[in-house]
């Protein structure tokens, strides 16, 4: 579904700061229906990576193939049409304060020129899916963080995308709300067969949500594989330290942590 080949991103030098390379040749394959996590510390390049998929950031070199099209070759005026096939969910929700829940979810369809009836047909079933039937006409200021993120997720789904990009979607939420949002995403992935790319700095998110994980450090992918395998046998120092953040008994009892994890998932 998505294939990144040797994707590089260098920000040109500006007054006071030298040129900065955020991505040094990323290769990543994401199959249809899969949830792939990209984990790393701040500044590892994971946010740049996810923005290269929907061309919010234009790669300096390399190709990004989404659903068979090399999207780096698209003309600027064709980008909006391409982006409508992808949904994106953000850390800080990025909801319009001037629009109700319903109208926020409707926005992608409105931008695509959908009629009122088409919008209603798409938005009405999404409200119960994310558990917000009773908040239809509320404004974002009246919602909790978890509810806002549910609106963000419904908005990302409203244009019926094949791929959903999740950028630190639980980083602004408390642990209980995080669990609810992650299980909602998992449920949506199963029901709609969506492909998801999940950026995070928390191993717990990877553990609960993802099928595969790529670990990033310094603009490169240092380790990649099935979530279970990576948890059971992390080889790179970055992976080990990210795991140690999550499970305080790691690395003295790595297998215990991994087993506990698979036990929970079963």
């Amino acid at each position, binding site marked *: 579904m998505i294939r990144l080949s040797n994707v590089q991103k260098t920000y040109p030098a500006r007054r006071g700061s030298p040129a900065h390379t955020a991505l040094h040749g990323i290769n990543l394959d994401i199959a249809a229906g899969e949830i792939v996590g990209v984990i790393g510390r701040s500044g590892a390049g994971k946010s740049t990576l996810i923005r290269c998929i*929907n061309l*919010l950031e234009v790669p300096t070199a390399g190709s990004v193939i989404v659903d068979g099209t090399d999207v780096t070759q698209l003309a600027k005026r064709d*980008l*909006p*049409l*391409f*982006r*409508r096939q*992808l949904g*994106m969910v*953000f850390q*800080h929700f*990025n909801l*319009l*304060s*001037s*629009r109700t829940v319903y109208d926020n979810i409707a*926005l*992608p369809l*409105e*931008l*695509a020129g959908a009629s009122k009836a088409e919008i209603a047909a798409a938005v009405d079933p999404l409200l119960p899916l994310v558990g917000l039937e009773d908040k239809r006409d509320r*404004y*974002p*200021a*009246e919602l909790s963080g978890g509810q806002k993120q549910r609106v963000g997720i419904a*908005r990302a789904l409203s*244009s019926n995308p094949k791929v959903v*990009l999740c950028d630190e979607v639980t980083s602004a939420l408390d642990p209980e709300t995080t669990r609810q949002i992650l299980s909602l995403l998992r449920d949506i992935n199963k029901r709609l067969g969506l492909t998801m790319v999940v950026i995070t700095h928390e191993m717990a998110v990877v553990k609960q949500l993802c099928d595969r994980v790529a670990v990033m450090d310094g603009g490169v992918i240092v380790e990649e594989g099935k979530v279970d395998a990576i948890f059971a046998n992390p080889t790179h120092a970055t992976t080990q330290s990210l795991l140690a953040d999550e499970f305080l008994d790691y690395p003295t009892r790595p297998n215990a942590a991994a087993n506990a994890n698979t036990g929970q998932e079963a």
Partner: protein
Amino acid sequence: MFATLAPILLQATLETFSMVISALVLGTTFGLPIGVILATSGRGELFEAPLFQKIIGPIVNATRSVPFIILAVAIIPFTRLVAGTSIGTAAAIVPLTVAAIPFIARIIEGAIREVDGGLVEAAQAMGARPFQVVTKVLLPEALPGIIHGLTLTAVTLIGYSAMVGAVGAGGLGDLGIRYGYQRFRPDVMAAVVITLIVVVQMVQSLGDWLARKADKRNI
């Protein structure tokens, strides 16, 4: 006494209103697009055109740095060209509009710059075209700030409209100067001042109410 004063006062108030409302509407018509361009044409922004911004910015500043009474007199030839005359209430709308355009442009620019950049990114990720980002995201989200700014503009224009009395326009300012000051009628002056205070108060309250209604950030 009041019976003779009241019709004159009413007439002058209506003239002031017509000048201010016309200048506000015309000023917004021209100032809004300029403000949007100022706020979105910087490097890396929606309609990247740094050169354009470098040209239009100083023009806006130059217009704003000329005291209004000087501006009104200096552009009399232009006023005559547009309105056919340089005297009267209709003619006064020309300098008022010229002064309002850069004022409103800066207010719109400021209000748009207050909008969270994350919303622009989200809209682009949804496939919004640049013009849609302006109409669907930036302007609706900036609306409370824009209403506050236009209220400020209206109050400033009421003050300016009193000054255009000096170049032959009507309105409350003209009434105050000609009757109150030049004919030594402190009662007329007092009536004019009180009317101005009431009008400004009303405009401000109306603006605050509209801005509150538009603002959904604190419910």
